[in-house]
């Protein structure tokens, strides 16, 4: 592997012990990925700030003790604790302290205390073709697919090492040859009504992830009206049921102006027809509960955008939430500030909605432990929450979530999932 003079200086410890350790990790990663050299990255998004155990703290403490500072603009993913509303944490206090301590350690390295899984909602997001080092699967797939930036799938520890050194292996999705589509998913017979609904996108993403696995999927047949929030939901779902880090949506995403260009002139390895029945099956697979009982609703995975708040605000202005049903919205601090500045907070206070920032309801104990059935509009939340926080889950649209919360029992529109 060819290392630059600066790479060698970092590896030799001439930039401090923490930088030496970080470069050691980066070069080891480069060897594993058979990269011939390292490249610069313009920014990083770090996921290691979510507490997973003592190793999380050990690594961060070693870096801080060694004088670690990030050298490129670096945002932080969610942590274990909502630092603005710490009273929401219902778990072990010692674990909360450790989680909070880990968040502080990462901020002390010069990372921006953004605490969001949706860094693409912040100003200054990556530009087309720009190399970045992002962790958090939904952020990775959004950066690659919707923004056309280039990041491989970085995870805990390697993410902050990239942020400290500003370097990553020239491998994976940083390379042109790995960005061409490999599998085609063609929407077939899906009604115009369903194509216009937000709820299609997480369900389609679930199918995409199941079919694509680690391949780069190309999706053909989405309407021109598709929004960023819909692609956010699609990507987050595909990165949960599968290991999708990049997808192309023909006519929508920047590297797929046409089907041919999405595949780089090659033929797809496989073609999957996505029919109404396939989507209905996927929608059903995202639900584990078997009755209409409802304890809580959780939306905002990935973090709710301001446009999603606009829609929810309108819905909650028309209806209340039934006694005994909790309603959570996970979002970032800066979107919460925008909600406040637009004067919408009174709607949420009036409805009794709990706004969660800095973290998410499926990675940390915030739900009432006596609550067993939770409804969500997020395929990612539906995929992970049963295992992470031990609840039964019901998947539905945002409108269905609000209607169900209002009536105190699960209500869904079954007719939506038929064909033309």
């Amino acid at each position, binding site marked *: 592997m060819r290392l630059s003079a600066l790479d060698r200086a970092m590896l030799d410890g001439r930039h401090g012990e923490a930088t030496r350790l970080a470069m050691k990790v980066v070069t080891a990663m480069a060897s594993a990925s058979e990269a011939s050299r390292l490249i610069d990255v313009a920014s990083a998004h770090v996921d290691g700030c979510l507490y997973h155990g003592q190793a999380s703290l050990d690594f961060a403490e070693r870096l*801080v003790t060694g004088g670690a500072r990030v050298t490129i603009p670096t945002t932080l993913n969610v942590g274990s604790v909502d630092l*603005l509303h*710490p009273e929401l944490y219902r778990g*072990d206090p010692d674990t909360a302290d450790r989680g909070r301590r880990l968040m502080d350690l990462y901020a002390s390295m010069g990372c921006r205390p953004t605490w969001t899984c949706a860094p693409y909602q*912040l100003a200054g997001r990556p530009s087309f073709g720009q190399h970045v080092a992002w962790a958090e699967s939904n952020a990775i797939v959004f950066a690659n697919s919707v923004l056309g930036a280039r990041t491989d799938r970085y995870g805990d520890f390697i993410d902050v090492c990239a942020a400290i050194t500003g370097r990553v292996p020239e491998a994976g999705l940083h390379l042109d040859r790995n960005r061409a589509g490999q599998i085609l998913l063609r929407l077939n017979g899906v009604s115009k009504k369903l194509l216009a609904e937000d709820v299609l996108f997480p369900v389609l993403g679930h199918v995409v992830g199941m079919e694509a696995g680690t391949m780069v999927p190309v999706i053909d047949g989405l309407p021109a009206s598709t*929004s*960023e929030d819909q692609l956010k939901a699609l990507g987050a779902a595909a990165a949960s049921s599968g290991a999708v880090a990049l997808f192309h949506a023909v006519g929508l995403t920047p590297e797929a102006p046409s089907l041919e260009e999405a595949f780089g002139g090659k033929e797809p390895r496989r073609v999957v027809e996505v029919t109404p029945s396939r989507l209905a099956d996927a929608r059903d697979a995202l639900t584990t509960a078997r009755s209409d009982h409802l304890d809580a609703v959780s939306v905002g995975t990935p973090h709710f955008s301001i446009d999603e708040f606009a829609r929810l605000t309108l819905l909650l202005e028309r209806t209340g939430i039934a006694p005994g049903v909790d309603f959570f919205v996970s979002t970032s601090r800066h979107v919460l500030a925008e909600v406040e500045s637009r004067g919408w907070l009174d709607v949420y206070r009036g409805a009794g909605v709990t706004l969660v920032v800095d973290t998410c309801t499926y990675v940390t104990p915030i739900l009432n432990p006596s609550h067993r059935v939770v409804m969500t509009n997020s395929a990612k939340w539906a995929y992970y929450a049963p295992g992470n926080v031990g609840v039964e889950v019901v998947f539905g649209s945002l409108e269905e979530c609000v209607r169900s919360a209002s009536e105190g029992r699960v209500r869904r529109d079954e007719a939506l999932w038929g064909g033309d």
Partner: protein
Amino acid sequence: MPRVGASVRSCGVTKFPFRSSTMANGRTCSSTVHVDSPKALVSAAAGACPG
């Protein structure tokens, strides 16, 4: 494709609010917002915020 959401803000820098009227205690429960000595964090005792 429409560019929607907070990402359309044209300003180059996003400021991260450390207060909100939604806060119960009126203050953030972390030293995150006022870190003076990063290394001191390693040896500092954990804070006594409500868990």
